[in-house]
């Protein structure tokens, strides 16, 4: 498999009156063609900013991508002139946002929102674009697409709108779809429908997916590999199986332990991660997670643990990763 997207040492900072917020602080990852990659982290960890940085959509000021490279199909997106990046956005890389209710334009019909990018990027005529729009709505399994084209966003439910968003994202045959919390605003029975649809369509058309979420459960079934982010950095990466079955970072382990699971017997008490997420303006020296970490030692305060390999295709930014992995092995045995 060839690499489609490679993010190298990406740094996006926000320059605020209170100081510099390092929202994304040196993250690197690669996404293979046809792969589904999960990016998991809590609010404020930088996962959305990292996605917006790829598309160069971070508002400037106050945000600025101060370093790194985003290599997509052989070109560094960060160095492209504005006219070129506009040809990438929506055409080669498309986005699906969290809130379909607010990310569609309320005064434009569904038809116009679908045909806009077709006319712009694929230079279709109005009639061609309309035919294509109908086809795309069919693809995302919206019943009676001809009639639906004339509707406006407020006439649709959240789940239907998210289907429209996916249809728009697919409309120019992108190579990559970045889905930022695509199901967070939806009900649980609709969530499953949308994720299944995205995965099916991705497979059918060979589209790679980058799914950003705070919910570990959402990506377990769909992602091939998962990145975990905390305070602007990637703390762990591995196959879905590695991450969920034998996590090599205390933060990942903490996240997994803090959610009650329906498939396991009920426990008397939940096991939360103590403390609060750090203030990105005043990050502690060393490991950003150490103040909430059960395994923290003096070394964690002195030096920031680098992201290093701890298994085949498995990397972790923790000094005690090996201990965690062997404990996971014991649990499994």
């Amino acid at each position, binding site marked *: 498999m060839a690499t489609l997207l490679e993010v190298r040492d990406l740094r996006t900072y926000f320059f605020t009156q209170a100081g510099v917020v390092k929202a994304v602080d040196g993250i690197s990852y690669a996404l293979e063609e046809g792969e589904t990659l999960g990016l998991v982290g*809590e*609010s404020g960890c930088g996962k959305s900013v990292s996605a917006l940085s790829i598309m160069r959509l971070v508002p400037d000021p106050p945000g600025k991508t101060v370093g790194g490279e985003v290599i997509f199909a052989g070109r560094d997106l960060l160095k492209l002139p504005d006219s070129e990046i506009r040809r990438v956005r929506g055409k080669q890389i498309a986005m699906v946002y969290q809130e379909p209710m607010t990310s569609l334009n309320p005064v434009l019909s569904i038809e116009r929102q679908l045909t806009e990018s077709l006319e712009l990027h694929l230079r279709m005529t109005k009639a061609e674009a309309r035919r294509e729009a109908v086809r795309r709505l069919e693809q995302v399994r919206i019943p009676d697409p001809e009639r639906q084209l004339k509707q406006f966003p407020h006439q649709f*439910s959240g*789940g*239907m709108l998210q289907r429209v968003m996916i249809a728009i994202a697919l409309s120019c045959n992108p190579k990559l779809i970045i889905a930022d919390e695509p199901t967070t605003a939806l*009900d*649980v*029975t*609709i*969530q*499953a*429908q949308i994720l*299944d649809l995205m995965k099916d369509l991705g497979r059918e058309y060979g589209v790679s997916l980058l799914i950003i979420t*705070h*919910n*570990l*459960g*959402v990506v*377990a*079934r769909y992602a091939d590999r998962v990145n975990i982010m905390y305070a602007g950095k990637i703390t762990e990466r591995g196959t*879905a*199986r590695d991450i*969920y*079955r034998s996590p090599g970072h205390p933060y990942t382990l*903490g*996240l*997994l332990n*803090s*959610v*009650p*699971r*329906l*498939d396991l017997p*009920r*426990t008397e*008490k*939940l*096991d*939360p*991660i*103590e403390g*609060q*997420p750090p203030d990105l303006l005043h990050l502690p020296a060393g490991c950003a997670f150490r103040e*909430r970490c059960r395994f923290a030692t003096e070394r964690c305060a002195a030096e920031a643990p680098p992201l290093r390999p701890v298994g085949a295709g498995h990397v972790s930014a923790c000094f005690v990763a090996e201990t965690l992995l062997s404990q996971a092995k014991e649990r499994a045995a």
Partner: protein
Amino acid sequence: MTAVESIRPEPADEVLIEVKHLKMYFPVTAGVLVRHTVGQIKAVDDVSFVVRRGETLGLVGESGCGKTTTGRCILQLHRPTAGTVLFDGKDLCSMDGRELRGMRRHMQVIFQDPYSSLNPRMTAGDLVGEPLLVQGLCADRGAHRERVAELLSLVGLRASMADRYPHEFSGGQRQRIGVARALAVNPQFVVCDEPVSALDVSIQAQIVNLLEELQEKFDLTYLFIAHDLSVVRHISDRVAVMYLGHIVEIAERNAIYATPRHPYTTALLSAVPIPDPVVDTQRERIPLTGEVPSPLNPPSGCVFHPRCWMATAACRQATPELREVEAGHWTACIHAPGYGSA
């Protein structure tokens, strides 16, 4: 035998809240100069259940199913269209504003969004202390200050944080302020309306644990409204499932999760993602097609029948009532084992 009559024989002193045939219809109006009602949204349509003293009753369902409206109707934050709500045997629906204000000492609410439910211009101390002033529970300023400090430490905040404003706190800490505010007047009953769904995963567990500790300490009774079925299983003693304004199933926690008797509950449970790729891909999933119908124009008969894979002609005709199909296990599905004979 209807649901209410057969729940009734429970020992009266065990029941704290009794909801009977509760209906909450919101009018839909049209016209600019002459407003007239053109329809009704049946947010809650004939719901009956009891909450026992000291228990946690989980109320689950998807958005728009009427779970929040039910909670608000119990507290009389909406005055219900029909039905009664008995609190300790006293009918709340027939009380006037003054009587209700007295009752609010005993029943409180924790809201979903700690970002919008706290007044940004009040300090944490003012927020927690306000209910004490409203109810006139503190003799003097010294006692008031002491009680506020006590409440803050109770929910895991420092007394010195009383002078800070909501924006200086993280989401989890704000929800702690919301909890302290609800508990300030020593209530017996607390409606927790999605208290953790706006919080980060790692913080959710902290708040759930806190709610459980406080329940034990003060003998609280909770109505825990949520859409997250895993959290509800953890915290609840019994669980009620709502769909489109109706309670479709209500049972002991273990019974409802192990042997759901309503197809909607079954589908809902099967849709919950499990954070383990091996387990999750092996699980049988019942995909629900379509969307929740509009409460403005609910389907005839069983409200779930348009999305139900078991639906028959009979389901389209009569609305099935809630019946006890096993001891303590109530369901409103005519296809549930034991439903016909109950």
